[in-house]
């Protein structure tokens, strides 16, 4: 039995994102699949990659995104840096600091995205305050110059609008739980952008249902408690989470700690539709420093290794039961 998700509910309500995800590996595509869902389904098991925009510069990021694309990434998450990255481990935290030190702004970020044309759909990953503050009106800007003047309430719509314009397919907000996501969910719906939610090892019962009723694109399965960061093994929590999610008809991608092809294989083996790799790629960028995109080749090779790992996992995976 398939439990209700945003996808299945949308279908019933006649929403334009009407679609059906088949748990047998995505062979059967619904016509209104989003770009993201389509990318996962078509390339199952999918490899989702993350790097931070502006690390170490936006020029480098452009070259690195293209390298990820060449290497076979099926989806690419681009981090828009925020000064308080409380959900990140040391690796991505450092990347974000490098990007901020380079002066990366949301405006420049969107300009970069405007400039990119990759095969893989792009998502932006950022913290909620960056979304709230984007593109304030002239009146609001003026109010910040002095003390205690009236201020427009922050609004998520300018950000989502600009993201849609730039061709972004999805948004991930690590500090926005389903309970607070109403305004952003609505704005994303209005602009056909997927809003990805994270499912944690601690997410169970009613809360799991609530998240799954809001998620679109894919469910970001957090492999373990804690923060992002490359680790040497795959935790039991991953297996448990995938088991808990088995009945929901939305793609599941596992992140937090995936660093090697073998991890990818094991995760796909455990039933995931995709793996998300971030810190392992950011490490490569960090090791090469600034210059003329010196990490591009290594990134491309790493993505290839991971993609192969994921495929190996698929071959080893038991045949999924039909829903």
């Amino acid at each position, binding site marked *: 039995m398939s439990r209700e998700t945003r996808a299945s509910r949308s279908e019933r309500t006649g929403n334009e994102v009407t679609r059906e995800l088949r748990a047998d590996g995505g062979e059967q595509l619904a016509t209104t699949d989003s770009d993201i869902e389509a990318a996962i389904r078509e390339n199952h098991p999918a490899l989702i990659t993350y790097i931070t925009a502006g690390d170490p510069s936006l020029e480098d990021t452009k070259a690195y995104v293209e390298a990820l694309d060449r290497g076979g990434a099926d989806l690419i998450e681009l981090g828009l840096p*925020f000064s308080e990255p*409380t959900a990140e481990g040391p690796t991505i935290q450092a990347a974000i600091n490098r990007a901020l030190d380079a002066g990366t702004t949301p405006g420049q970020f969107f300009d970069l995205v405007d400039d990119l044309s990759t095969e893989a759909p792009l998502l932006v990953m950022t913290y909620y305050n960056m979304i709230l503050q984007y593109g304030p009106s002239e009146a609001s*800007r003026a109010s910040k110059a002095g003390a205690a003047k009236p201020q427009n*309430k922050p609004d998520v719509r300018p950000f989502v609008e600009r993201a849609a314009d730039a061709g972004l397919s999805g948004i991930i907000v690590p500090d926005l739980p389903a309970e607070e996501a109403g305004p952003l969910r609505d704005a994303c719906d209005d602009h056909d952008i997927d809003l990805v939610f994270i499912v*944690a090892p601690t997410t169970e019962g009613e809360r799991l249902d609530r*998240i799954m009723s809001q998620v679109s694109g894919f469910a970001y399965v957090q492999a373990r408690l804690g923060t992002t960061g490359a680790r040497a093994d795959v935790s039991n929590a991953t297996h448990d989470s995938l088991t808990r999610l088995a009945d929901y008809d939305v793609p599941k991608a596992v992140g937090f700690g995936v660093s090697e092809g073998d991890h990818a294989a094991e995760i796909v083996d455990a039933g995931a539709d995709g793996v998300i790799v971030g810190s392992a790629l950011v490490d490569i960028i960090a090791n090469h420093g600034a210059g003329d995109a010196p990490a591009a080749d290594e990134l491309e090779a790493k993505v290839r290794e991971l993609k192969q790992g994921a495929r190996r996992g698929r071959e080893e995976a038991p045949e999924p039961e039909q829903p």
Partner: protein
Amino acid sequence: RTFGDYGGQYVPEALMPALQELEDAYERYVLENEDGFMDEFSERMRDFGGRPTPLQRTDRLSERYDREIYLKREDLVHGGAHKLNNALGQVLLAKYMGKERIIAETGAGQHGTATAMAAAHLDMPCEIYMGRTDVNRQRPNVYRMRMNGAAVNPVEAGSGTLKEAINETLRDWATTVENTHYVIGSVVGPHPFPRLVRDFQSVIGAEAREQIQEQAGRLPDSVVACAGGGSNTMGAFHEFVPDESVDLYAVEAGGSSLDIDEKEGVAPNSATLSTGTDGVLHGALTKLLQTDDGQIVESHSVSAGLDYAGVGPELSRLVETGRVTPTSVDDEAALNGFHRLSNLEGIIPALESSHALGYLEENYEELGDLVVVNVSGRGDKDLETVLEETEKRDLDAAPDVEVFDA
């Protein structure tokens, strides 16, 4: 979950179940006194913490300002500040909830020392995150925490101060949330923390309200408290909020100037209520010091305990509705306030509390005939800072600096 639009729970998904569990515990133990929780809390605050603290009528300040000035003496709480009210409450709550481990962040070290004391008192393992810069400049507080048996984990990231320590504690909590309680140090963070901390701190105002009526025969015309994160502020104000006749003044750290350097991402102040804009930080929608893009800026104050770019969401709401008046005084006024109280009344106040005293000096005429000022903590911890800062300036209220050289 909110105060008007302010508040909420903007945290990683992994923490949400813990917040729900905490909300449940808050309702049962704090609001409904299940298992006599609040009775035990009050008893321990009396016997261990030294409550009630006095409400002292001042002789010399009252004469100076030609009105009745009363001080609420939170500097006499065990540990030297109001911080224990909250720390003990939360550690006790964690014990009732069956948690096995306590973590907390600390900036200057006041909340860390209070939490370490409470954890030692209640026999709970405790780890404190503290920025490397703060560890290096607040050695005595590091020693105190360690003597109380707490581990102190230096945070090497960023500027090594409070913000980084909070971030790192959130990361620990995201990993250990199942058996660990995070003792947030102020009325900030995601729901239910702002309410929980406020309720533990509201004993300040509850005592003061009763004491002033006993001693002066009526409610005060105004209550003045400094505001950083806002725990002593909400603690002092909460019980007076329904008393429409009582004006409430939240005095923020004006630092050296109220302007923000957008380019450098630096505010030379911590006057969030006075100058901040709405945004989300550390789990709540509230007023913030941020750039137009939404990056949180480095705040600054001569008082480490006020040096925070956010503020409690309930205070944002009370300012929005006009119930609380946001104000600020600069570093120099605070330093003068420090010296003035030390010299005139024999009470060395925390630099945080000195802001409230600086405001009193500059605006006493607006405060009515009967004024309560919350002395949130004692200033022993600030001696070195005050000496350094006094040497740089020509302060009206300070002793000649040479006297410190002998």
